[in-house]
């Protein structure tokens, strides 16, 4: 027996589903001799990478080695007590939430809840989130989260422009009391829309001086002051503007809610409700408004409806407002939100309840008042009366410098507002000893001369009476029932069990790349050295992050073939937006700022045109030919027609039809020859890595959905990350940040509130790339293509497979056509999607990019065994459809039309359907072994959209929802 003492386990073999035997079986089914032969048939030779992919590390790291290395990086990050504030606060994640949600694949591996019947758990948690936001802000309607506070404020400005302005132009007032990053994100967003952002003092601004369509204030302000905005709100309304208030959920447990101050929109971050700061993210932002603006509100809304049996059921409401459908008419390009983090925040509210939240707020406020007393005693007097958790302390510049240095020496970060002022923000993690430590810094060498107990005698809030909250909040039973850990644990588990996640079966959503989110990739996310850093902490304290960013940027640059990377964009949609702004800045820099036409193929994802409009571009649609490819003749004609105005082409590659188009290089040349730049949508990058690259096809800039190709879990609809990679001529325009220096020398403004977006989840992509190595990544791409072609091969006898490349191969996904079944059996794509649930599967992407079809993307992580089960299910469903076609089953009462079948339906005393209960619920052998029960029957979409209810109504009212009073003002 010879002994291999150098044996190393390969992570790639764990990440990739099919083993060698399965791989050979699939190749045989496809009639090809080798994997490379298949790839040669799939990826056009003209764009194939000449050299194998190279990464800085020559060898892939094992799971343990990679984690050990990350630990050394993590130890370079220094954990100072943060009193910086500015929208980011330390918080204590309840451990029951940390372990059972944030660290639990049953919660983080789902996709956006499009298939409501198998997503009722998440939908309930998100409805709780909306209810929490509505009640704390005093508004009428809220969405199920946005990317960050800055983005949310920018969305509010866009809504104001849409509903009060004249489409473009005009002015938007922003109080100087807003967080600086919010102001910068607004400025970035305003510029291409031709909107002037006027920053000033809300007490003195003359709203008659310009055509103001809205105003934004911060409550409490960034320097801590709690202003009474009632009079200002009236002024904004008198000027026919929309009144927007950026606010803080914890403060609102004590303060009069914005809704009662006259706000039309309230925005903010839910981070301090139990979501780690994460050096910038991810966290959920909120957006709440009045019923009148429901239909123009950005983001996703969860609504109450009924299922086929008339029982209460939840779903995403008003989906037609989304950019998928509205395209260039959409007012926002937001898709992915921050579902996982919104759920954590809502669970934090469920766990603490209204009394617990108020007690936390009162402690934070109490310690702040205590600190104010102490500072006054020490001679740092100021008017500290109208504050919640933040104090602005003024002193002479040399003294400020001394204090900041002394604080840092004691392991504390204060905010340097300017050379004469320091900001101090307290939070849930602050304890009396911290207040003592802060006071000691201000006292310098002198002893304090008083104890905290003396200081805290008869401690009372100094908030003015008119700004103290009198309206109750979170009165619904869900926020008042689960305060013991046992009850909380069971509530979390109960909701989890209603959702189908990757822990049950594959989620074959085309264009979504639902691959493995490996445990080793997830582990570092919740390390305190990555989680507890404030995004605006001095960069010297984030040395570990710095190395991580540099390495990840280099990895992504190598993979895309580009020269520069920005890790700032917080989602694919934000990446598109950042990429187009970079192109815009480039065109301006060469005196071509008048170029405003963006060519977009008709097959593009709806987000592309929505983004182009946000970036100030006019969309010109390019036709596709019969085989689904860009019609090159039409492209040439459009490009020629607009050649003096052509700014950019947005193209997805491989195409949204799942095909490697042969003409892609020519397509890019046509645009370049006429002065345009090429933006590549990276949604389908999983088919490229190691085989070709955005640079090789001729693009100038691309975004990468790290939550698709690079393993950040989808979190049930977020977090995501959408870094952009650019060619060398665009590097200097990469986005900057107003607080932390980053980006290009002539960078565009911030597109996201934090300098590196959701920094803490970048470790996931780093781990994936480090553990796979260049070879592993390339093999993953090949296997993703193999799995998709194998599915196309198995299904083509049963369903037409739309669109193939020149040599008959699909890329990493395939489209199965069901349109003819409507004629032959009255069956629609939705019926098949719902029937798949009875077989234990989540449907593939429904009706995108072609209505009436299913788009299947298996990814490399699914084994042949699992892929075969999915194929078997779809083939069995085809046989069920044949029963209808042959007249053996009625058209209106069959297993498809009645799908999905719930346990309640199956066990009902009466059964009068023309098929057996067994056939309904146990249609395949594997279901006998492992049955996933949808908790509700088919959702009634019409009812939910006609009568929108988007907060938890009293239990007894669930069946008779209030009609919405929607009317766009």
């Amino acid at each position: 027996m010879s002994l291999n003492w150098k044996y190393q386990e390969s992570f790639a073999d764990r990440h990739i589903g099919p083993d060698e035997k399965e791989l050979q079986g699939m190749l045989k089914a496809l009639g090809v001799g080798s994997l490379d032969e298949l790839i040669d048939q799939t990826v056009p030779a003209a764009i194939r990478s000449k050299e194998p992919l190279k990464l800085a590390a020559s060898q892939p790291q094992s799971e343990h080695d990679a984690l050990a290395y990350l630990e050394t990086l993590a130890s370079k990050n220094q954990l100072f007590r943060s009193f910086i504030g500015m929208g980011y606060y330390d918080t204590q994640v309840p451990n029951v939430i940390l372990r059972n949600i944030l660290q639990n694949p049953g919660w983080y591996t789902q996709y956006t809840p499009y298939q409501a019947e198998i997503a009722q758990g998440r939908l309930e948690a998100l409805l709780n989130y909306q209810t929490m936001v509505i009640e704390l802000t005093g508004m009428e309607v809220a969405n199920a989260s946005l990317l960050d506070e800055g983005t949310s404020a920018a969305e509010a400005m866009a809504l104001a422009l849409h509903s009060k302005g004249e489409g473009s132009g005009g002015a938007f007032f922003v109080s100087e009391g807003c967080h600086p990053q919010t102001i910068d994100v607004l400025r970035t967003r305003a510029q291409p829309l031709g909107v002037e952002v006027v920053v000033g003092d809300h007490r003195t601004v003359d709203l008659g001086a310009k055509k103001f369509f809205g105003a934004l204030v911060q409550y409490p302000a960034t320097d801590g002051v709690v202003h009474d905005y009632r009079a200002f709100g009236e002024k904004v309304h008198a000027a026919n503007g929309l009144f927007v208030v950026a606010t803080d959920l914890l403060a609102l447990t004590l303060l009069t809610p914005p809704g009662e101050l006259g706000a039309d929109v309230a925005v903010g971050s839910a981070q301090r409700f139990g979501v780690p700061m994460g050096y910038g993210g991810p966290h959920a932002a909120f957006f709440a408004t009045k019923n009148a603006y429901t239909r123009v509100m950005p983001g996703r809304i969860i609504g109450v409806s009924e299922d086929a049996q008339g029982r209460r059921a939840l779903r995403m409401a008003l989906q037609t407002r989304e950019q998928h459908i509205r395209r260039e008419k959409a007012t926002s390009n937001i898709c992915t939100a921050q579902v996982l983090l919104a759920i954590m925040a809502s669970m934090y509210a469920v766990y603490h309840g209204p009394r617990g939240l108020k007690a936390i707020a009162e402690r934070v406020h109490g310690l702040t008042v205590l600190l104010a007393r102490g500072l006054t005693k020490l001679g740092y007097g100021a008017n500290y009366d109208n504050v919640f958790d933040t104090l602005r302390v003024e002193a002479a510049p040399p003294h400020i410098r001394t204090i900041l240095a002394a604080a840092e020496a004691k392991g504390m970060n204060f905010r340097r507002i300017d050379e004469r002022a320091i900001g101090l923000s307290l939070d849930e993690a602050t304890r009396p000893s911290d207040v003592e430590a802060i006071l000691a810094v201000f006292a310098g060498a002198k002893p304090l001369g008083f104890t905290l107990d003396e200081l805290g005698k008869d401690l009372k809030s100094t908030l003015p009476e008119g700004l103290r909250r009198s309206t109750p909040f979170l009165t619904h039973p869900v926020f008042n029932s689960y305060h013991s850990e046992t009850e909380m644990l069971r509530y979390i588990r109960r909701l989890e069990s209603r959702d189908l996640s990757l822990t049950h079966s594959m989620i074959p959503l085309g264009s979504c790349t639902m691959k493995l989110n490996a445990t080793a990739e997830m582990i570092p996310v919740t390390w305190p050295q990555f989680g507890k850093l404030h995004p605006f902490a001095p960069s010297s304290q984030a040395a570990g992050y710095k190395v991580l960013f540099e390495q990840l940027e280099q990895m992504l640059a190598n993979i895309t073939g580009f020269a520069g990377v920005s890790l700032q964009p917080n989602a694919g949609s934000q990446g598109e937006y950042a990429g187009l702004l970079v192109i815009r800045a480039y065109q301006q820099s060469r005196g071509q700022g008048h170029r405003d036409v963006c060519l977009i193929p008709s097959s593009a994802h709806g987000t592309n045109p929505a983004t182009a409009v946000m970036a100030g571009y006019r969309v010109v649609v390019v036709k596709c030919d019969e085989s689904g490819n860009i019609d090159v003749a039409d492209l040439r004609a459009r490009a020629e027609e607009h050649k003096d105005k052509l700014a950019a082409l947005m193209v997805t590659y491989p195409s949204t039809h799942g095909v490697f188009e042969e003409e892609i290089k020519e397509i890019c040349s046509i645009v370049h020859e006429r002065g345009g730049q090429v933006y590549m949508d990276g949604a389908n990058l999983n088919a490229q890595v190691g085989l070709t690259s955005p640079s090789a096809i001729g693009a100038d800039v691309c975004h990468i959905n790290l939550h698709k190709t690079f393993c950040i879990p989808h979190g049930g609809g977020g977090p995501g990350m959408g870094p952009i990679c650019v060619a060398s001529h665009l590097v200097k325009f990469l986005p900057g940040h107003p607080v932390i220096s980053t980006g290009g020398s002539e960078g565009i403004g911030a597109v996201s509130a934090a300098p590196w977006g959701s920094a803490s989840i970048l470790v996931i992509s780093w781990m994936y790339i480090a553990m796979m190595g260049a070879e592993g990544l390339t093999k993953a791409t090949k296997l993703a293509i193999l799995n998709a072609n194998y599915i196309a091969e198995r299904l083509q006898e049963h369903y037409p497979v739309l669109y193939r490349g020149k040599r008959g191969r699909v890329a990493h996904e395939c489209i199965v056509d069901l349109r003819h079944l409507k004629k032959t059996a009255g069956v629609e794509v939705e019926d098949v999607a719902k029937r798949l649930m009875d077989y234990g599967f989540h449907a593939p992407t429904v009706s995108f990019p072609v209505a009436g079809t299913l788009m299947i993307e298996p990814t490399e992580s699914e084994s042949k065994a699992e892929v075969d089960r999915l194929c078997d299910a779809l083939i069995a469903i085809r046989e069920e459809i044949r029963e209808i076609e042959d007249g053996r089953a009625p058209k209106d009462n069959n297993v498809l039309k009645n799908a999905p079948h719930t346990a309640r339906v199956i066990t009902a005393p009466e059964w009068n359907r023309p098929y057996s209960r067994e056939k309904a619920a146990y249609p395949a052998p594997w279901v006998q072994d492992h049955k996933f029960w949808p908790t509700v029957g088919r959702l009634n979409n019409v009812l939910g959209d006609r009568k929108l209810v988007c907060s938890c109504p009293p239990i007894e009212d669930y069946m008779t929802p209030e009609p919405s009073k929607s009317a766009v003002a």
Partner: protein
Amino acid sequence: MSGEIPQSLKYTKEHEWARIEGNRVVVGVTAHAQEALGDVVYVELPKVGATLTAGGQFGVIESTKAVSDLFSPLSGKVVKVNDALTGNPQTINSDPYGAGWICELEPSDSKELAGLMDAAAYGKLLQNS
């Protein structure tokens, strides 16, 4: 197709209809339009007093599948809107040419009528689409 196309109405290629009633014109969407949209869940009505231009967008109609803009057949001032649609948008599905009307205009240029299709022409448009 979608049954009878009323002879007495005028039509646009965007599938709106116009009914002349003295010096007023009632506007709605055709049976074909509502069928293509599916279950209508919401209608954004114009404001009374608003001035519309022929071919210009004056409202939005939403179904569970799609959102479509409404285009005015004629220029003129809105004198009445069908508020009942706010609570019961499905009326557009059940009675597109009757109770599902959307608004009433006072046209500013009667010559524009000549630019609209009659039932025969609209029927042909549907056949060819």
